[in-house]
């Protein structure tokens, strides 16, 4: 698989597979393409080359079904400031076709006492926990997490690790972009740094880098 962002090749020759219960840690320096790869995997970005397959069938044939199989937690938390925590979570569950969010979703992240608090009063860490609660609110076999613990305290990060372990024990799969803050037992590592384009090409196009970091 290969990726080009704004005429700059980010990575190429990336290839991996994941079994039920498996985990993959995406590592690499800033701008190596960890976030871009996650966005390709959920269909928000088109790869410049290569294929994405699920159970041997190319995902290109049915993106609607693929979107139902995955949860994506990116850098943006999708929390509306004027809706309460419970309303925010419920909306996202319903937009995925569920009747309502699972009740234990807020407990799993330790924010059940915030259920009636409007989103604008949440701290960055609390917003992230609400965003992660979507994972539990509706089930999906594949979790795509982009530096999920970056704003979290140690206790919440441990909760996330527990969630991921439980998800994998149920046969779920996790792909995490990380700088090593989160413990994943027996996870495969995919170092995007080694698939990157030569360093002199990166230096030639420095102004394009901040945008890539942002995604």
């Amino acid at each position: 698989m290969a990726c080009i962002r704004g005429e700059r090749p980010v990575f190429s020759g990336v290839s991996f597979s994941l079994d039920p219960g498996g985990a993959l840690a995406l590592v690499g320096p800033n701008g190596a393409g960890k976030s871009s790869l996650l966005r390709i995997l959920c269909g928000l970005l088109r790869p410049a080359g290569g294929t994405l397959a699920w159970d041997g069938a190319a995902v290109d044939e049915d993106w609607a079904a693929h979107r139902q199989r995955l949860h994506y937690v990116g850098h943006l938390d999708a929390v509306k400031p004027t809706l309460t925590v419970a309303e925010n979570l419920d909306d996202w569950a319903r937009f995925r076709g569920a009747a309502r969010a699972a009740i234990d979703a807020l407990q799993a992240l330790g924010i059940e006492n915030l259920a009636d608090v409007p989103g604008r009063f949440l701290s960055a860490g609390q917003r992230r926990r609400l965003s992660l609660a979507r994972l539990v609110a509706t089930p999906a076999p594949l979790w795509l997490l982009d530096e999920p613990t970056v704003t979290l305290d140690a206790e919440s990060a441990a909760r996330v690790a527990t969630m991921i372990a439980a998800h994998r024990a149920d046969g779920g799969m996790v792909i995490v972009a990380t700088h090593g803050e989160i413990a994943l037992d027996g996870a495969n590592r995919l170092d995007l740094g080694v698939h990157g384009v030569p360093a002199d090409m990166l230096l030639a196009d420095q102004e394009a880098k901040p945008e890539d970091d942002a995604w």
Partner: protein
Amino acid sequence: MVGVFLRLVGRELTLALRGSIGTLMTVVFFVIAVTLFPLGVGPELGLLSRIAPGAVWVAALLAALLSLDRLFVADHEDGSLEQLMLGTLPLELVVLAKTVAHWLTTGLPLAVAAPVLALLLNMSVDGLVILVVSLLLGTPILSLIGAVGAALTVGLRRGSALIALLVLPLYVPVLIFGVGAVEGAVLDVGVHANLSILAGGLVGAVVLGPLAAAAALRMTVE
């Protein structure tokens, strides 16, 4: 899918109603803009009733423009747009749901306020009825065309000025046929042709607007 669609419309309405003055601003602007005309041209009733259809429609058009820039920007900034794209509802229907909510909070209040303001400009009763009908047919077109402009400019920092430039030329036909219908009623020369063209335009906009806006949003998110 219908349930999800209605839920999204409901969510957008809740956000608009809790989102402070933004929604109210459209109608207030409309009222102020129309009341400026009698002050500007003087209290001569014959002249006022002659310019009334055009004045009300132009004010409605500009008021509808005001609220467009927030249509997708907030969702784009807080990541909701990405999550909506990953949901079960096709992006075209997401756009349509947001546009319906936008019309309910801007176009519909304009159509309700318009007859009162037109009275201020000495419009005849026949004209008032057709004015409301033409606005009910025309303002959804304004929202739908506006959604395309808003989707194209969602990633830009100073998008709102660009929206006006992109969208106003496309508003011209709506203005012409909307005013034409009201004048037809006032002068008693028939309104059906103009209203039919507005209705046809609405059908076309419902089909094409969401398609174009969704394509523009996909480009932006990449």
